[in-house]
């Protein structure tokens, strides 16, 4: 049996001196942060009831001199391993109402107060990057390179094409999701409740349907507990956030959790890294220096774990791929699918150790058919690099390869062949 998936949380490797920060140094940090702001600068407007017609009405992002960036008090962040979304890049921001701060909840999830606004702007580097702003949507690039990205969560609009900005808004009744779609001029983003299909083309990949989700489809991922059916942020957890970010200015490179603490936006003490309610820093999926297992698990966690967890919408499958899962069967090892339909690709088990081509997980990640692909939503394209990571993870599985058909432990009768079933050959 593989032991690779059974790691307990590592101890927390982050600066600990912060807990002792004095009020004075917090004030100094805040002062440094605010130094670049002009008095008239816009700041976010929380809409408690309805979603306004344009993104601009929220004042979370602003465009100045061809650069899109956060408004006053809005903090950019990134994740160790992000969800794959058809090679889109994402600018993420968080904003908390004045005088409030976030705490840590179960699983290291940040608990944000009512009035908080998260934004995620989907964009692509342009092939003609540098040839002037406002060009119409031509071929875009599928590259991991940070083209057009400026420090402090800002984007040079002559180098990127904005597609949509999704918001998660913490209202009194809970988190609510909404999307705004940018126009070709990249000046305005308008409310889009029922979703949209935007034809795009990526260099080296080809044409595809970029899908803007409708509001219910937002919930398909963000209602991570299907019984309670309430929405929650997915990426805003300590394990995803524990990394450096280039804030620019006087702050420069800094650990994101540390930065939020120093701004007074996050409670100082992270929970102890215990098995029950602690957390382990997620690997970056493409960090070659990290272990293959930690990279693959981080990838599955962020791409699959929001549905495939023991309370999630995909709990019907018995397959759980979130970071907390430790049962090899629940991770899919030699596990039969329950209701995959033709998504099995004529294969019998979710993961066959040592044999990626016999594993349903690989098949469904490699599919672009809405009736069989995984994730079901959020991509039209295959993530070739992510697929390769999972292929390698399965290929290099420790221990004996394959799934011994015919169980024959002493507690059970041996079954020599599937005589009453039709031939599976």
């Amino acid at each position, binding site marked *: *049996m593989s032991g690779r998936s059974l790691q307990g949380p590592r101890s927390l490797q982050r600066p600990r001196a912060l807990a002792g920060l004095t009020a004075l140094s917090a004030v100094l940090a805040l002062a440094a942060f605010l130094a670049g702001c002009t008095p008239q600068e816009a700041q976010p407007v929380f809409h408690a009831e309805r979603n306004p017609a344009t993104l601009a009405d929220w004042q979370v992002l602003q465009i100045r001199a061809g650069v899109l960036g956060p408004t006053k008090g809005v903090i950019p962040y990134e994740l160790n391993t992000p969800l794959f979304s058809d090679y889109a890049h994402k600018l993420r921001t968080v904003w908390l109402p004045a005088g409030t701060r976030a705490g840590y909840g179960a699983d290291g999830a940040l608990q944000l107060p009512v009035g908080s606004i998260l934004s995620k702007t989907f964009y692509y580097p342009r092939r003609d990057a540098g040839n002037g702003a406002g060009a119409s949507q031509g071929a875009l690039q599928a590259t991991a390179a940070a083209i057009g990205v400026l420090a402090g969560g800002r984007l040079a609009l002559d180098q990127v094409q904005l597609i949509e900005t999704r918001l998660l808004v913490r209202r009194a009744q809970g988190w609510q999701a909404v999307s705004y779609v940018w126009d070709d001029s990249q000046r305005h983003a308008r409310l889009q*409740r*029922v*979703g949209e*299909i935007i034809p795009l083309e990526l260099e080296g990949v080809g044409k595809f*349907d970029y*899908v803007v989700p*409708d509001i*219910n*489809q937002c*919930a*398909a991922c963000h*209602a991570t507990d*299907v019984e309670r*059916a309430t929405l929650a942020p997915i990426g805003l957890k300590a394990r995803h956030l524990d990394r450096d970010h280039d804030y620019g200015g006087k702050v420069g490179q800094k650990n994101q959790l540390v930065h939020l603490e120093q701004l007074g936006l996050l409670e100082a003490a992270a929970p102890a890294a215990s098995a029950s309610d602690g957390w382990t820093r997620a690997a970056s999926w493409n960090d070659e220096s990290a272990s293959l297992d930690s990279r693959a698990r981080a990838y599955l966690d962020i791409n699959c774990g929001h549905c495939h967890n023991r309370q999630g*919408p995909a*709990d*019907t499958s*018995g397959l759980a791929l979130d970071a907390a899962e430790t049962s090899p*069967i629940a991770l899919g*090892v*030699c596990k*039969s*699918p*329950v*209701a*995959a*339909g*033709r*998504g*099995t*690709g*004529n*294969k*019998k*088990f979710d993961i066959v150790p040592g044999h990626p081509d016999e594993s349903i997980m690989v098949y469904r990640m490699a599919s672009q058919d*809405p*009736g069989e692909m995984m994730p*079901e*939503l959020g991509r*039209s394209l295959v993530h070739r690099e992510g697929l390769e990571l999972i292929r390698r993870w399965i290929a290099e599985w420790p221990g004996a390869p394959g*799934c*011994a*058909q*015919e*169980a*024959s*432990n002493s*507690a059970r*009768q041996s*079954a*020599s*062949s*599937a*005589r*009453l*079933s*039709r*031939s*599976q050959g």
Partner: protein
Amino acid sequence: MRLAVAALALLGWLAGCGQRPSVEQTPGDAGRFQRELQEKLLDAKPGEIIEIPAGRHLLDRSLSLRVSGVTIRGAGMNATVLSFKGQRVGAEGLLVNASDFTLENLAIEDTRGDAVKINEGERITLRGLRIEWTGGPSTRNGAYGLYPVRTRNVLIEDCLVIGASDAGIYVGQSADIVVRRNRAHQNVAGIEIENSRRADVYENDVTLNTGGILVFNMPNLPQRGEGTRVYRNRIYANNTANFGAKGTPVASVPAGSGVVINSNDSVEIFDNELRDNATAHIIISSYFSTGYMTNEGVAKDFDPYPEAIHIHGNRFSGGGDSPDGLDLKTLKLAMFGLGGRFPAVLWDGYRDPKKLQGGKLPPELALCVRDAGPVLNADGPGKYRNPSLTREGFDCTLAALRAVELER
């Protein structure tokens, strides 16, 4: 004239939306109808009835509902058609995560994946629906027609389901279920009750599937199923070659199966008409016989044995004469000759050795088969070396299961 009627119907539909009327939809015009319908689903209030007028409506992405207490109603299963033939987005036609939900009197055609999936919810009613993959049986068809999962209090009635590449009507991990007066034709499994508790399946017309009605338990799931009654159904000529993708539970079902019980407990099968199912009218089997049993991949606490099975008072005719798969063909030839036939009931021969008392299951867990002639014991545990025809141990009675009460 027809155009005028269609335009009028569309006008009625659009009246509340302030949109201009339109004539018949063409492919590529999936947009407006779809946007407006999805908007209604987003904005629905509890108690609301969303009427979809007659017409053939093209959609290219999934619909979804997350508000409880909503009814979606068409003008009839042949009048209101939601066609997903050009579907580009979504693993279902309609995905529901809500309670007190009713869907009735319309058709859903050619979804890429499942046609209607209801994930978590109580008091679910699916009535008078036609779910169809219009090209006939194909592995490329979507998996499930009507698919409530993790639901409670479910009524599925008067529906017609054609062409699902897995199960036409599939109730999974649910409780308190009535499936009645439906027609399930040309699916891999006509009707499947899986890991569910307290289901009544009656007065259905089940034919031309690979397997007619399945009562299964799968491992590695939080809920084990038990307590299904299958009665007063017509289950005939379910001889369509298995077109399910390998790896699915139904892929193990031989063509020509009437009713298949696998690993499930407390199942009562009575007063059915079973005719011309070419492998066997009823198969009682354990998880060992699915071909999916592995040491690594099945939770140790999973019980693979069917127990407390009660088969009585069914009417059998024909069938058993052309079983599917080389193993079964060989078995039939060896035991019954070229022109012979299997008996009505096949059993794979697995019993839990830990529960045997004097070589028999205790009476409350027995496999009782009456009014069906002898049972063919395929001798799975003995590696199929000594199959036998027997009545021994099967001539017993179990207490009748109680009817499911949905209180509606």
